[in-house]
């Protein structure tokens, strides 16, 4: 095949999600004119997709390494409960115990890993990393113990809840890597276990934990206080040029997308993911520590899912064990629409961002058109499959036909 057509074809396949995004945006602009295009509506869509985008970004990395993470929805649920309870409870609760224990575990591994990196290789100080890790983790643990009676601050939940999510994700990765079990099965197990954990922590078989801010006429229940005002910022719009413009959740979405893009395009870790997704055995033979990469990528996915749980909690002022129900499917849909192959090794974050926006805009446009819910569901299904069909090289085939006369 001539190089130009081939290059065009591959770039067109790569661009398919963006062309989808552009065409759906145009459709919205034409169908709903004023309402769709106005700033308020656009920011709404951004705010709405931002939360679900986080697990989709983590999922992209996992799928690139030929894995799958079915547990992200449950981790969103779990972390929303954890977050709500940490903010509201003023006594020791299952949530604070779990968060502090698992958070300490996370810090231990991270600190000792960091110290190990700093040490000269082959040195005799092998005892140092674990000791420093223990000391650092113990200190952080002691500090967080002091916080319990006053309730956790916004910063602390933003740090601790994703840490807990990352540890649960790492458990996924550990079992997948060391146990040599298919990711589908392991994360299916975690999907069930994390919801169970969420219900256990929530108490009474899985009650809702609402978030309240101090307000006149506020009615409190049980042992709860009120959430810090700053937590409300996570659901508000951040002022730019004096007008409230950017939804805070959108900032997290953009930051996470940039970080994941950076990992995939600039870091060795990113290249390893593609390599493992392409062919795990080859990757192993070429000296990549496949197990370590897997554990880290599932930890990353778990951490992002937990962050989404915190943002859910802020956006809907509640944490509950069914918060993220079926979110893993939405995340997978976004990844797939974005052109990432479920077989691994092929795909990008930019595609996933487009995929997330396509799903968000589609629902928004159909709502604005007042299309009945059942029709919306059908269209969503058609779009998912249609988008993948387009990327299956059908566009490339058409293009080849178009160019055949000229190049052959």
């Amino acid at each position, binding site marked *: 095949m001539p190089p130009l057509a081939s290059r065009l074809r591959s770039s067109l396949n790569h661009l398919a999600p963006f062309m989808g995004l552009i065409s759906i945006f145009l459709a919205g602009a034409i169908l709903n004119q004023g*309402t769709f295009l*106005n700033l*308020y*509506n656009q920011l*709404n869509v951004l705010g*709405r997709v931002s939360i679900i985008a986080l697990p989709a970004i983590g999922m992209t990395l996992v799928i690139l390494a030929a894995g799958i993470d079915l547990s992200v929805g449950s981790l969103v649920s779990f972390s929303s409960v954890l977050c709500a309870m940490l903010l509201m409870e003023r006594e020791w609760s299952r949530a604070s115990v779990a968060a502090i224990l698992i958070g300490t575990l996370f810090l231990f591994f991270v600190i000792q890993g960091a110290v190990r990196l700093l040490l000269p290789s082959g040195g005799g100080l092998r005892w140092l990393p674990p000791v420093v890790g223990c000391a650092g983790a113990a200190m952080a643990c002691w500090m967080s113990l002091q916080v319990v009676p006053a309730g956790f601050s916004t910063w602390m939940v933003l740090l601790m809840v994703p840490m807990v999510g990352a540890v649960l994700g790492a458990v996924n990765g550990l079992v997948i890597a060391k146990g040599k079990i298919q990711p589908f099965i392991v994360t299916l197990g975690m999907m069930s276990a994390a919801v169970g954990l969420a*219900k256990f922590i929530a108490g*009474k*078989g*899985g*009650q*809702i934990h*609402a978030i*309240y801010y101090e*307000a006149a*006429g*506020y*009615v*409190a*229940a*049980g042992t709860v206080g009120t959430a810090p005002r700053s937590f409300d910022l996570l659901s508000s719009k951040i002022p730019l040029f004096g007008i409230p413009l950017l939804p805070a959740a959108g900032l997290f979405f953009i930051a996470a997308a940039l970080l994941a893009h950076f990992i995939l395009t600039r870091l060795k870790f990113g290249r390893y993911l593609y390599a493992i997704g392409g062919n795990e055995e080859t990757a192993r033979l070429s000296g990549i520590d496949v197990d370590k990469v897997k554990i880290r990528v599932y930890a990353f996915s778990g951490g992002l899912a937990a962050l989404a749980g915190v943002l*859910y909690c802020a*956006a*809907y*002022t*509640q944490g*509950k*064990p*069914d918060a993220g129900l079926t979110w893993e499917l939405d995340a997978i849909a976004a990844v797939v629409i974005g052109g990432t192959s479920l077989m691994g090794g092929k795909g990008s974050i930019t595609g996933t961002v487009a995929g997330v926006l396509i799903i968000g805009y589609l*629902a*928004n446009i159909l*709502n*604005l058109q*007042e299309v*009945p*819910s*059942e029709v919306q569901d059908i269209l969503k299904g058609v779009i998912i499959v249609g988008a993948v069909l387009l990327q299956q090289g059908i566009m490339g085939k058409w293009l080849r036909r178009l160019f055949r006369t000229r190049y052959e």
Partner: protein
Amino acid sequence: MKNRIILRPLIFLAAAGLLLQAGCQRTEKGKVVIGFSQVTVKEPWRVVFNENLRIKAAEYNDRVEVIFLDADDKTENQVEHIKAFIAKRVDAILISPKEASGCSRAIQEATEAGIPVIVLDRDVTYKGYAAYVGADNERIGEAAGEEAVRILGGPGKARGKIYEICGSLASTPGQERRDGFHQIVGREPGIEILGGLDGDWKLDKAKAIAQDALQLHRDIDILYAHNDPMAYGAWQAAKELGLEKRIRFFGIDGLPQEGCMWVANNILAATFLYPTPGEKGLEIALEIIRGQRKIKPGEKIIIPSTTITRDNVNRFIQSNPDAKSAL
């Protein structure tokens, strides 16, 4: 569904194990053992349902024991529960089934084995059971309709726009809550009902729907959602637009931690109690066991709803044992 073959005996064994434990205590004289199969505890309403039943059972001290089994939203598990209850010969069975048809045969078996079965919340196709206890969603929808008409100017004179967000329309509660409401409001020529999208009972979905809908209809007077979390989600969307003061929000369910709290905090104008049937079901079971009540197969007992507004909400919050008022 290949795991069903393995799971079924496991669930049976687990249920039987629980019952064995209960059975040992049953040798105590005069102790009544009642088996209860709850379809799921994922929904907060069912958590309250179990909690209320637990409190009611505790009122009888040690004379009554209720064995709670959670079917994890699967009909198969409920069938296994009932079979285990029959094998253990409990005094009565309470069941809140997943759907109308799935458990019918098992309930028939239990009834034929001489164990009275009380069906709670959702009805089943087999009508030979000892009693059905539940709330009536259509009547709740009607009550919401009456309140809406009252607020908008009274029968015959009511004028205004109502936006509706439905629960899952594939479920009977969703259909009935809509039908009851439309029956009353539909008589008013001055009222227009808009919307009707499916919010799937979820706060986040309802918020998204309301965010979109309120841009099109800024002039609605009442937003009627088929449950409280959806009404709350819609309120959050209205607040972003500064419309939360002029729109009145109606929810359904009236759970102490949710709807009642939102009514108390001036977020919802009203919620309509969807009462849990556990306590009444237990009372009826005990009456039957003690011979104080004659079984009329297929008898239906409807527990009434209450309209909860700012005026009476404290009563419903205080009925929750671990809630206190900071007002």
